[in-house]
Every structure is written in C-alpha cells, then in structure tokens.
C-alpha cells in the first residue's frame, strides 16, 4: 500500500503521555492537514515520525509503504523517502546550502557512485528560481543568520531537491508574513503530485487558504477528534477548538 500509515500510536516524554492512540493514513498523492491547538501533540508526532530520540513510542505502529518505520534510524527513514520540514531548523555553520544538499543527495547513492555535479547544480538552480530565491543564496551557510522566512523557504527548497515520498511539514507557516507564506505555499503546491504524500501540520487555518488540503484532521489532547474534507478547516475556524474538544469526549465515550 502506498501510504504513510500510523496505527494507534502512543508517545510519551518522560512519564507524560503526549500522543494517546493516534491513527492516521496519508496516501501518496494526497495532502492531509493536521490541525490542533498548542500542546495537542502535533509537533511531537512529527518528531517521532522523523525518529527523534527524546520521545518514546509506548504502543502503536507506523508503516511507510508497508515498511515498519519505527525500526529505522532517522537517516535511514530519510533516505527511504521521509522528509520533515522543521518548525525550528538548525544552523550548520560553515556548510553552504549547496554543499549540504549535495551531501544529502550523495548519501542516497550506492557506495562508490558519485553525484553528477552539473546535473545537480542545474536542478538546484531550477528549484531556487521556483521559490523566488537568488542563486547566491545557495552559497550561504545553512540557516546561519537567516530570517524566519528564509529558513522556511530553505526547508521547502530541500524538500524540492530531495524529492521524498512523504513530507511532514511542521508549522511551516509559523512566523511568516503574508508574502513569505504565499511563496512557501506556491513552492509546496508546485511539488504536489501523485508521487508525494504531504502531512501539513498547522495551528491556523490561514495556510490552508493557499495550500488546499484533500483532508483535514483535528487533533486534540493527543488524538484525532474530527476528520473531514477541506471544509472542516473552515468550520473549525468558525467554531473554534472548544467545539472540536467536545468531539474529543464523544470520541472517547462512544468507543
């Protein structure tokens, strides 16, 4: 099955359970928005999918195209096609974007095979233009001294270059003004297609005006309490998370 399949996932940090039985399927080719208030466990989910060691999975499974994702190291997950756009991307002093992405692509090749430099730069410059960035940007050190908008655009540039099967975009809209938001959304929209499944994590409905999701899920207190088509986002915007929370009780008591 070509999908990212999360089954009854439970995640704890220390002795606190953050995600409590989350089930979600993101087929390739679709965009799923995951919305929720602060502290609902959205970013925790994203980090666990990417393999961060600070979180413990106490129950549940995650499959990527049928493969048990949780058994893999973070770098193996990435090489097999999982990408995460970070909410707070790290700086890598002294390493240029061009060199970093080159190393990332190189790591996907079999041992002894060298990345073709001319093809690589052609692709890099093509994607750079797509995101309305200047070529000289690629010779700056990764995220070092970047504005919030530059950091987020760099995340989308990496997504465009690495061509994953599934992308988890963790609050990619946070800290962006409307122009930057439009550019980032344009970048994501241009990457949409049958080969990419996207899990779009956001707190606000605003982003979904520009990236129209196929499905919307509302997460409250570590669980998905409502799922629906794109209209759900608008309804949520109107009625607020408290309305969704009522759904949370329903979900618990009707089980």
């Amino acid at each position, binding site marked *: 099955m070509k999908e990212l399949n999360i089954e009854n996932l439970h995640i704890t940090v220390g002795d606190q359970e953050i995600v409590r039985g989350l089930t979600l399927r993101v087929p390739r080719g679709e965009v799923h928005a995951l919305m929720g208030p602060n502290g609902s466990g959205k970013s925790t989910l994203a980090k666990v999918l*990417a*393999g*961060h*060691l600070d979180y413990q999975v106490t129950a549940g499974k995650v499959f990527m195209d049928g493969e048990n994702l949780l058994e893999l*190291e*973070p*770098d193996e*997950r*990435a*090489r097999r096609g999982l*990408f*995460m756009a*970070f909410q707070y*991307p*790290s*700086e*890598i*002093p*002294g*390493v240029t974007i061009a*060199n*970093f*992405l080159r*190393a*990332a*692509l190189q*790591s*996907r090749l079999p041992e002894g095979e060298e990345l073709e430099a001319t093809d690589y730069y052609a692709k890099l410059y093509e994607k750079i233009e797509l995101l309305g960035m200047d070529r000289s940007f690629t010779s700056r*050190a990764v995220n070092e001294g970047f504005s919030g908008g530059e950091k987020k655009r760099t995340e989308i540039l*990496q997504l465009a270059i*690495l061509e994953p099967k599934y992308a988890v975009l963790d609050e990619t809209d946070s800290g962006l003004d409307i122009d930057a938001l439009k550019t980032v959304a344009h970048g994501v929209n241009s990457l949409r297609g049958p080969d990419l499944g996207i899990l779009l994590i956001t707190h606000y409905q605003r982003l979904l005006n520009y990236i129209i999701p196929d499905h919307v899920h509302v997460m409250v207190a570590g669980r998905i309490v409502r799922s629906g088509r794109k209209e759900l986002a608008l309804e949520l915007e109107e009625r607020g998370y408290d309305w969704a929370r009522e759904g949370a009780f329903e979900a618990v008591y009707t089980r």
Partner: protein
Amino acid sequence: MKTDTTAIDIDRGKGDFFYPEAHVRDAGTGLSERTVRYISDVKEDPDWVREFRLRGLKTFLEKPLPTHWASKDLEAIDFAKIRYYLAPGTEPKRSWDEVPDDIKRTFERLGIPEQERKFLAGVEAQFDSEAVYSNIKKAVGEQGVIFVGSTEGLKHYPEIFRKWFGKVIPIADNKFSALNSAVFSGGSFIYVPPGVKVKHPLQAYFRINAENFGQFERTLIIADEGSEVTYMEGCTAPKFNTPTLHSAVVELIALKGAKIQYITVQNWASNVFNLVTKRGLAQENAEVKWIDCNIGSRLTMKYPSVIMKGRKARGEVLSIALANDGQHQDTGAKMIHAADETTSNIVSKSISIGKGRATYRGLVHVPKHLKHCKNNTECDALLINATSRTDTYPAITVRGTGNAVQHEASVSQVSAEQIFYMQQRGLTEAQAMSLSVNGFVNDLVRQFPMEYSVELKRLIELEMEGSVG
C-alpha cells in the same frame, strides 16, 4: 616471509601497517654518550657536529620535563626503552626503482610516488631514521635549488649548513630540542637561491615503521633574498602496543623579501608522543607562514613560531587540531615581533571529540620600543561531545603605544539537534559530524593549497567515521 597479507594490519586510516624491520645500522635501546657517538660514527659527522650532539645530550639530561606547565603524561615516556637510530646504511636513492621493495611498497600505499608525478617539485621520503629516497625535478635543480636529507646537506653543503644550523632554535631552547640536537637524523635541507620562486611544493614524508622507536628529524630551510618556496611534510606511523616518540626540530630562515610556506599534514597513530619545535626567522619584508594540522598522536606539543627580525616582516600560523578520544593536542603559536612595522596573524581552530582534549597556547610579544606592529589572533574551539575538553592560554604582551593587537576566541558545540537535523536529510551520524567539522574549519581550509585541503578533508572524515558507533 614479507607478504602483504601477513605483515599488514590495518585498523585506523591508511597509515596503520608495517613491514618487518631490515635495519643494518642500529644504535640499540636507551640513550647514553655511546648512543650519540655511534650515530656520529655511522654518519661520519665532522667534529663540530660531534660536539654539538654531546652538548645536546648533556642539556637534555640536565633539563627537567616541563610538567610544571605541560601535561603529566610526558612522564609516561621511558627514554631508556626507546631506540634512537635505525637505518638501512645506504645513501638515499634518486629513483623509486632502487628503493628496497618493502619500503617502496610502504610509500606506494601512502600514495607518495603518485603525488610526486602529479604536482610536486621534489620529494624526500624518510623511513625511520634516514631518507631512503630523495629527488628533485630537473628543472628545479637547475635553478640551483638544493633539496636533500639533512645528512646529505651536512656532508655536501657544509658552509651554508653550518652557518644557519641551530641558530634559530638553540640546543637549550627546551628539553626536546636538546634531545633532537643529540640524536638528530634525517629531515630536509633546502636552499633556494636569490630570486628563485619554486612553483610547486617540495614534499617530505616521514614514516615510522619500527616499534619502540624515536624519530628525530631535523629540517633546515633557507630561502635566500627574494625567493619563494612551499614545503609540505606528511607523517604517519602504525599503531604499536608501546609508545613511539617523534621529536623534530625545524628551522626556517627567510632572508630579505623571501617567502616560506611550511605545511604539515600529520596523521600519527594514537600512541605517538609528538613533541616538536618549529621556528622561523623572517628578515626585512620577508614572510614565514606555517600551516599546521595536527591529527592523531597521544600527545602533541607544538607551537610554531616566527621571529620577525626585519622591518615589515610578516609571520602567520594557521592551525587545525583534532583531538579524538584519549588524545591531547597541545598546540598554538608564538609571534615574536623584533622590528618596526611587523605584522603577525594567528588563526587556530581545534576540535575535541569524545574525551579528547585540545589546548591552545599562544604567545605574542611586541616590545616597547617598536612602532606600527600588528597582531591578529583568533582561536575557535569546537566540542563534539559533552565529555570533550578545550583550554586556551593566550599570553599577549604588547608594550608601547603605536602597536595594535586584536584577539578573539570562541567555543562552540555541535548540538544533538543539529546532528538530528542533518540525519533527517539522509546523512549518517558520522557523515553529519564530519560535515559539521568541515564547516567549522572551512574558512581556514580555503586558504590552503587545493591538494592539501582535499587530503585534510579525507583525514577528518576518517577520524569521524572511527569515532561514531
């Protein structure tokens, strides 16, 4: 039988292998007057060198170990268990074909003959105590450039050798320069005539092959007025169960308007004590530049220095030290300003991994009577793990009013989040660390010659591969 399969044992980098010994000259184990006289005899030293060696021995025995400021680990060196001179008893060859098979194979595995063909103006290869190969490109030799081992230099060019030998670094400079003065052998002797600019680097390669051994090469480079030369040295040794000692002395003399660039690629096995004294003298408008990269060894103590003796002389030290688990890189630089309008620059970067320790010691001296001298010092440390350690001991004495000095230092750490971020893009943990380290040294490495920065990058990768998982 000496076959590739039985004698070679690789477990760290490409330098970790050795062939069975086949030495004809052997000064035995331990150090005494007899050892020193034996070395003088087999090398047919002139009287002044015999005396020089004996004074060296006396000074070495009198001086205490510098443990009041330096690492106590120095006490682990057992001078009575070291072998001080091992050599085949033949002159260095001018062609690789004449070099004995085992030795030739050693250098082939290290890629030396290949590099010589590609980009070098001359090569000297030292195996234990003596040079086994020494050759200079014909065109360079015809310009009057001399590039031979120190033994040959002393024999064939005694006037120029004696004039400068031991003048920049006196016997009693420190305990290890005294030791070197007593038992020195090998190293390079270079003379570049006035106005000659040697386009490609001259390279020496120092190889330790024998166990319980001390290598004490002595290098002397004289760049006559207006000349230019770049010298590169590489060092490796296999990892033996007992410590090995490497204690070299390097003296550089840049006469009026000359430029010397001295590059070290050191990749010692992790039980080598590397205690080296390096100093250059820059006359009027001359430049001495040390590019010094210290990878490997158990303890390295090395502070390349420049004495700026003539007006407008320049001194520079660019150094990178990588201290892995169980290693202590105690490195730095000394800049002695001794004339007006002299300028010096020190950029030092250290990386500590695991329980590795990197120490920076710097000394900048500008006396009161001088005018318009400048120094810039930058030292940056990168810590890879929480257990890694770094210390900085800068000593800057700048007197007088018309002089400018600038000092910057920083300590940074590779964070778990940074590594996770890079792993999420597909890099393994080791690749991620290696890339972080490369990023940290990047602005410095860009100033190095190309061939050299490639080699350095490869060594850093090897070192990081070995330190993770």
